[in-house]
Structure formats: C-alpha cells, structure tokens
C-alpha cells in the first residue's frame, strides 16, 4: 500500500507538528509500508488563507497514493478518494481564539463572514474524510463545538520509546520544552526559591531571547545557581534519555496547551511522574492528580510544595512514575494502536 503523509510546514521552524509526521513515516517504513511525506508551506496570515487552501485543494494525489493521511491545517483540505485526517489543531485565531487578544483581526463584519466561510470550508473538507482522528480530547471537543463533527482521539506516541530508561529517582526535577512565556519556566524558578528540601531543577530548551534572559535573571535574583541548572540549548536525544532516567520527576506547566506534550510521554516511559497545573490544558488528559503525578495551582508556593513532596517521599515518586508507565497502555499510546487505526 502506498501512503501519502500530507502536512503543512512553516519553513525554518521545527516543532511538534513535524514529529508526528516524521515519526509515523519512520514507523511505517520499519513495518514495510511505502510512505512519502509531502510538506506544503503555509502561514498564519489571514490575508492569504483561502489562497493557501486553494493550493492544497488543487494537489492531485490519486495517481500516487492508495490513501493519504493529513495532519497540520490546511492539509485536511486536500482531495483524495481515501483520506484519513489526523487533526492536530484548527486555525485557532478563527476558532477558540476568535475575539481574544491572540486573534490578529477584529471581529467586524468582514472578518466575521470570512470566519464563517473558513469554518464552512473546513467542515466540508473534514466531512470527506473516511475517518477523523485528533491528537487530544481538547481538539476533539473543538471539532464538536465549532464544526459539529465527531472524531476519535488517537494519542501520538514518541519514536522508539524503548530507548527511555529508569535508572533511579534522583534529586532533579526535569523540564524539557521550548523556553517561552506560555511554557512558564519562570514559575518553576520562582518555586525553587520556596522549596524546603534539597531538590534540584534542570531546565532544558531554547526560546525567545528576552524570556531566556528573564529566566537567567530570576535564577541570579534568588541566588539559585546551585539548585537550578539551565541547559539553554537543544539537548541531544542521549542527554534527554540520561536526564530522564536519573530524574526524580518531570514537570510541565504550559498555559492551556492542546496536548499532553511529548516529554510527558517520554518521562512516563522512564517511569517518572509529571507535575503540572490545573490550567495546563491537555497535560491533565494524561496526568491524574495523586495517581501518576501532581496537579496543583499555578503559583510558585504550590509548585514548590509539589517538588518537596516528591523529594521527601521518593517511594511516592516511584509509585507515581510506575503508574505513569501503566497509563501509556491504558490510553493506547503506542504505534501498534496508531497503525491499526490508520491502516484499517
């Protein structure tokens, strides 16, 4: 079977939107399928959205692929006799962010009608799909709310998860993601000023200059040089495996993220719990408070207390970590499950 994996890309930007495509491609190849990735560039510019959708609609794949699987919008607009959609997010400015400060246009008459046409076009294209999957409950709920479509959640696994090991429950809480304001590393650093134990924090990742500087300044301000390690770079896969295998727990508290975040899953494969907050969105689809992690409110004192709880009760860190590992199979987060859904 020849399979086309169709997505959009923003040139020069890497991110989660590409991993789901490239990892699936690799797993398909390893399982003897013939697949090819097609990326068409696309931008969040409202002024050329319909032009971009036209380009996607005109693509002709019938001669090349027996089925296509689409990912990032507007790839779902493509036409094919056997289209499967694995929907990872909407054009959010015109959906849940409409009318908020995150939407670049005013909700006036022109843009309201533009929005209605966009939603109609999306809905029609999504209806063409043989099957409609999403990467999280949040995205499925939005499809229901705005497009009135039912979908099935198909959680994206990480590549070759057996690489992730568990060596011990050490002293470090590990954070691995882009360093940006909405990922809220500043709360982590401030929390470290409040901890009572000898717990350490390791922050790994790159991000915007000003926020990175804020984080560095905060570490100096609270004199946390001995307790907070800031790896301000892309760490290697081997370093990631190493940090997680020796970690006490993993922490991830983004502001209203759509999905659980790959590092949460990588931590679970290393049998490590995740600490998160009750306003982190999709993370709590995976993390259940006091079962496989801690879900606290978004202030530094509460986060500090969660860190201390893990440090003073390493058996609890281990129990939560083991539960996280079990949760992977409970939620069907595996390539076996993904292939059986997408190829049925």
């Amino acid at each position, binding site marked *: 079977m*020849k399979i*086309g994996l169709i997505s959009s890309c*923003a*040139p*020069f930007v890497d991110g989660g939107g590409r991993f789901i495509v490239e990892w699936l491609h690799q797993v398909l190849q390893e399982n003897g399928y*013939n697949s*090819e990735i*097609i*990326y*068409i*560039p*696309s*931008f969040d*510019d409202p002024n*050329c959205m319909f*032009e*971009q959708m*036209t*380009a996607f609609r*005109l*693509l*002709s*794949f019938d*001669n*090349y*692929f027996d089925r296509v699987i689409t990912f990032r919008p507007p790839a779902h607009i493509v036409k094919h006799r056997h289209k499967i959609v694995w929907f990872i997010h909407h054009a959010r400015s015109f959906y849940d962010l409409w009318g908020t400060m995150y939407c670049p246009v005013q909700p006036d008459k022109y843009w309201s009608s533009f929005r209605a046409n966009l939603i109609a076009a999306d809905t029609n294209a999504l209806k063409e799909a043989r099957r409609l999957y999403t990467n999280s409950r949040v995205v499925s709920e939005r499809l229901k709310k705005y497009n009135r479509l039912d979908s099935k959640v198909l959680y994206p696994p990480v590549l070759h998860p057996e690489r992730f090991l568990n060596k011990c429950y050490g002293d470090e809480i590990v954070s691995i993601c882009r360093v940006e304001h909405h990922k809220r590393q500043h709360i982590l650093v401030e929390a470290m000023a409040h901890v009572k134990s000898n717990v350490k924090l390791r922050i790994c990742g790159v991000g915007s200059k000003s926020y990175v500087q804020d984080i560095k300044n905060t570490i100096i301000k609270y004199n946390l040089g001995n307790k907070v390690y800031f790896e301000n770079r892309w760490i290697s896969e081997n370093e990631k495996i190493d940090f997680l295998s020796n970690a006490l727990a993993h922490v991830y508290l983004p502001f209203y993220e759509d999905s659980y975040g790959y590092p949460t899953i990588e931590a679970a494969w290393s049998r490590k719990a995740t600490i998160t907050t009750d306003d982190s969105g999709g993370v709590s689809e995976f993390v259940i408070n006091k079962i496989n992690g801690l879900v606290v409110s978004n202030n530094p004192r509460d986060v500090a207390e969660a860190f201390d709880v893990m440090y003073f009760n390493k058996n609890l860190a281990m129990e939560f970590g083991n539960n996280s590992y079990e949760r992977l199979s409970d939620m069907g987060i595996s390539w076996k499950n993904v292939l059986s859904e997408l190829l049925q």
Partner: protein
Amino acid sequence: MKVLIVTNMVPFVHGGAEELCFHLVKNIREYGHEAEAIKIPFTYEPAERIIEEMVLCKNICLGNADKVIALKFPAYLIPCENKIFWLVHQYRQAYDLWDANQTNIQKDQRGEQIRSFIKNADNIAFKEAKRIFTVSKVISKRLKYYNNIESISLPSPINDPQNFNGKTQASYIFAGGRVNSGKRQFLLIQALKYAKGVNLIIAGPPDNQEEAEKIYKIVEEENVKDRVKIDLRFLSREEYADYVNRSSAVAYLPFDEDSAGYVTMEAFQAKKPVITTTDSGGVLEIVAHNKTGWVVEPNAEELGVAMCDAIMNPKKTLELGEKGRVILDLLGLNWENTIKRLLA
C-alpha cells in the same frame, strides 16, 4: 541568511534532480546559512492538468526567506521576492519536445493554448528573477532559443568525489542511475549479442514496477542471463561508487539529456570512460568519441562494438578514462564556488 529551495517532485521517484536538491540544501547549511527545500508534487497527465498545477503553485505562500532558489517548473512560479533560478527543468514538452513530436500536449488549437499559457507564465517568472543560472549549456541555449532569456550555465558539482577512486578490480560495463525507457538500459542488454564475452551490470532504482519488468523481460528474450547482473533498487552511495570503481567503463544513454548528468561526471571522477549515443544531448558536452569514451548511434550493434572495444582494449580504456578525469577537473566544479555564485 535564510534560503529556500523550491522544486517539484513525483512521489517515490528519486534521481539526479533530487540528489542535486538534497546536496544544495546540505552545502548551503555547511557554509553557515539556514536552508530548506520545498518540494511540490507535480502531475502532468493529462496536459490539461498542467494548468491546475500552475494555479496551485501561484497560490502557495512562502513567507519570509532572504533568498529563494527555484529549480523546476512549475514550482518556480511560486510568487516570492528575491528569487533566483538554478534551472533544472522547464516543461520540455511545451518547448523542444513539442518540436520533436514527443509531447503529451495535443497538436491542435487547445494544445497551442496550453503551450502559450505555460510560455507566458515562464516569461514573466524569468523576467522577475534577480539572476538566472542553469545546470547546463543545453538548458541555457534552449532558454535563449524559446524564451529569449539570457542565463549563465553553472553545472552541479559531484557530491562525494572521494568515493570515486577508480580502483579497477573487475572487468565489466556498468550502467547506473534511474532505470526507465528514456534512459534506454534495454539497448545495452540487446547490444550484448554483438559483444561476445562482455559482462554488463545494470543497477539503480526503476521509476516503477513496469520499468523493472521490462528489463527482466528483455534479459529473458535475449537469453543473456549469464552475462548480465540486474540490481534494481535504490543503492547507497557507497554501493553505487563501488560498482563504478570496479568497472572498465560506464554506459549512459539517456535520450536528449539536459545536462552531462551525475552518472557521466562520477564516471570521469573515477577515471572511467563513458559509452554514450549521438542523441544523448548534454552528455556530449563532456564525452567525445575516442577521446573520453565512445559516442555511437543508438542501436544495439554499434553499442555492442563499443562495449567490446572497452573490454578487449584495456590500455585504450584506461587512457580514455584518464582524459575524462582531466576534462572534469578543467571544469573546476565544486560546491564552495557554486554556493558563492548562487548566493552572491
């Protein structure tokens, strides 16, 4: 500098143009810039379809790149500023192949309309370009003849010259590269009956299953199984170089090729002479009869004689190969100069 390469692709087809694109990206990165390739799928059957493909490309938004290097039709129609050409392909069936009656565009009024749509779009794109390079003299001449556009011919360098060390160990004729009817590997199999005692190896990726089966069928018909080795798959660079290095001479007979071709240049790098035909186009830019190889009529008998000469007169073969290398070195092709000129 952020550099985007725009080109076209056909799913599951990988040949010289794809190698050129891959190594262009790799080398631009090695000289300290960011680079990424955008590969738009292209369907050109039926001819009416080409119009849609052009509209498709006109609707793609590339976003902000400091420089765009366009390689192929119709991807070079994607609107953007700072565009330069390193032209690999126009749609030849609207130009020289139309004149040669080898075209999928019908010879009537509608066909003329399609051709003029292509030609007009081409003319505008070339006029808007900051600079125009082509990958061969043949392409530059054609561009001048059909579109009255001046350009500079800048052939692509070999990608891994160190692999082609030319250590002779075996005695056979090698035919590498993509396998299809246009590259005419079948003629070499038919030539074996005029080349007693000569062994032939054909190795490379077939464009599709039908092309592969054609080859097997001809081997069967000619009853030359004991003298031909057929290895139809995508070879690693090391495997491919090994076939070249151990051969006596390389045979390459594409019909009216645009450029000298990697196959030819890699043979010369390894000091192997090239057997080609009088209608092979750009290959004749560097292969001359009895100087750097054999240039014969495209028929089995003449090819058989040339193959015999190559195997039976090893001293001559070695000399021709040495001269091929001298010709190649005189061209002075390397990536450093190529990138400098493209990004100047």
